[in-house]
């Protein structure tokens, strides 16, 4: 007869927002919910929060793995060293430039792709698959492909571009190296951008566009007054995710130039200090600074564009 009591107990409880504060059901849901999310939370914090706190601690020491016995407390000295070094600022400038340029270009190309995907009636599968392929390709591989493409003795880019001399060495100087890095980055990550934009585009009601058309709005007016404002949330989410991703650029630079000609990014600098030079003290200070700068970038984007992630997910 236990089943019947359970039956009445649960059946009586309507799932409405105004729930009684201390019912058994609420309490058991609370505890089950916590148990179910616990492993995920523990794992996520174990590998991020804990090491980050450790980095914060280590950054206060003069600590090098080549000479671990000589660990000594230096306070904020490492931060002062990093912040007063022109290398740090040069790499930050590189990173910001890569972020701004690639995100801006990807937004335009990605939107064009999304429009085509949205409108096209035939060969949908083929188009979608080809757009997804760059996303699936390992960043390292994309870096190699573009490095060889730009290479002056094996590549095809010099031969194909009429205004470039056949012997031009793309990786011989700063500007052209950065262009090559950004092309690879844009190629690899535009698919992600265009998929997010496609999802937003699908939310814009066709009726509204049609109504604007009937009222005599031109193509440009429809795009800027109807379509874009209605997919604002999707655009903001796409920009936020891609910008933070671009700020962490590492693989492409590692493979294509290894930081030559001043093309290093801030991630690359941090990596080099820790893994190649075993400078855990200053490396940890750089880790903390990198983390803080990502927070600042995220904060600025959220504030400037007023991204509301909750409403984008209809969590409201």
């Amino acid at each position: 007869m236990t089943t019947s009591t359970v039956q009445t107990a649960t059946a009586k409880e309507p799932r409405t927002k105004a729930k009684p504060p201390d019912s058994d059901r609420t309490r058991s849901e609370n505890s089950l919910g916590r148990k179910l999310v616990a492993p995920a939370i523990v794992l996520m914090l174990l590998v991020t929060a804990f090491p980050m706190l450790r980095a914060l601690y280590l950054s206060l020491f003069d600590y090098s793995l080549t000479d671990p016995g000589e660990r000594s407390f230096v306070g904020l000295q490492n931060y002062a060293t990093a912040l007063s070094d022109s290398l740090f600022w040069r790499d930050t400038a590189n990173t910001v430039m890569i972020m701004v340029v690639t995100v801006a270009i990807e937004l335009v190309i990605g939107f064009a792709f999304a429009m085509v995907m949205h409108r096209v009636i035939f060969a949908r599968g083929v188009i979608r698959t080809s757009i997804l392929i760059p996303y699936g390709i390992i960043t390292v591989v994309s870096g190699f492909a573009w490095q060889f493409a730009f290479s002056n003795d094996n590549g095809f880019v010099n031969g194909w571009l009429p205004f470039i001399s056949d012997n031009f060495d793309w990786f011989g100087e700063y500007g052209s190296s950065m262009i090559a890095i950004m092309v690879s980055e844009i190629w690899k990550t535009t698919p992600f951008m265009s998929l997010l934009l496609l999802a937003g585009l699908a939310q814009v009601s066709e009726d509204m566009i049609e109504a604007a058309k009937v009222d005599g709005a031109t193509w440009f007016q429809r795009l800027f007054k109807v379509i874009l404002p209605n997919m604002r949330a999707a655009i903001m989410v796409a920009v936020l995710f891609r910008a933070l991703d671009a700020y962490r650029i590492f693989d492409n630079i590692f493979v294509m130039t290894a930081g030559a000609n001043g093309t290093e990014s801030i991630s690359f600098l941090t990596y080099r200090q820790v893994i190649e030079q075993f400078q855990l003290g200053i490396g940890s200070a750089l880790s903390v600074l990198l983390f803080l700068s990502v927070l600042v970038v995220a904060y600025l984007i959220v504030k400037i564009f007023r991204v509301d992630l909750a409403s984008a997910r209809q969590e409201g």
Partner: protein
Amino acid sequence: MKQKIGLGVGLAAILVWCLLPVAWIISLSFKSQQAVSNGSEGFLPQSGGGAGWQNYADVVGDDQFRRAILNSIGISLIATLLSVVIATLAAYAIARLEFKGKKFVLTTALVIAMFPVVSLVGPLFDMWRTIGIYDTWLGLIIPYMSFTLPLAIWTLSAFFREIPWEMEQAAQVDGATSWQAFRKVIVPLAAPGVFTAAILTFFFAWNDFVFGISLTSTESARPIPAALSFFVGPDPFSRPASLLAAGAVVATIPIVIIVLLFQRKIVAGLTSGAVKG
């Protein structure tokens, strides 16, 4: 008519832009190493400069490379499996239960998705060496799990919200506990979403480079992207471009097969995870 031409041009542009570099690296992988080191401009292998399948044979015959493929497959599969199981539990709670701390889980996941991975390299390098999992499979599986959990949780909870809630309630009315309702009713319904999350997780683990190069030092755990970047071949002074290209193609094949087979699911997963449509 004008619009149709525009669409056609757009389509052609998309196809060329997306597939050209892929075609290029495949073409490069068929050039002979000699032709490449002498400098062979042009897109396709020229007459006499082709290598047939030689580069592929060399790559597959290379012990380091074979080992790296094995590492990548093993590590990515284990990380995917564990991560998806844990994310499924969490996403179920987020989508279906009312509990305090839900916002905290979603926010944590979001923050971690944006975390600058490189800033963990230092402390993890130090910690892993101290506890002795540096340069092991486990040393890579743990960070991969943590960093794929956010995407998996967001994707799965979006999927789970679409599942008809009445089914679970009906099971509970019939006497099932919350846990039984989860296992017997929701899991089968959620399987497609879980599968999508698994594909995306696998992508992340397979693509990772930062952890791959910094938390390994030998071939015992080095995954394929790291192995490719360290691959020097017989002559350390000139990088064997065509051999690398062959290696890159081999490393890419599993992913391309997955993309071809499951493109619909991948699109659904990527878009529902970020913006709910």
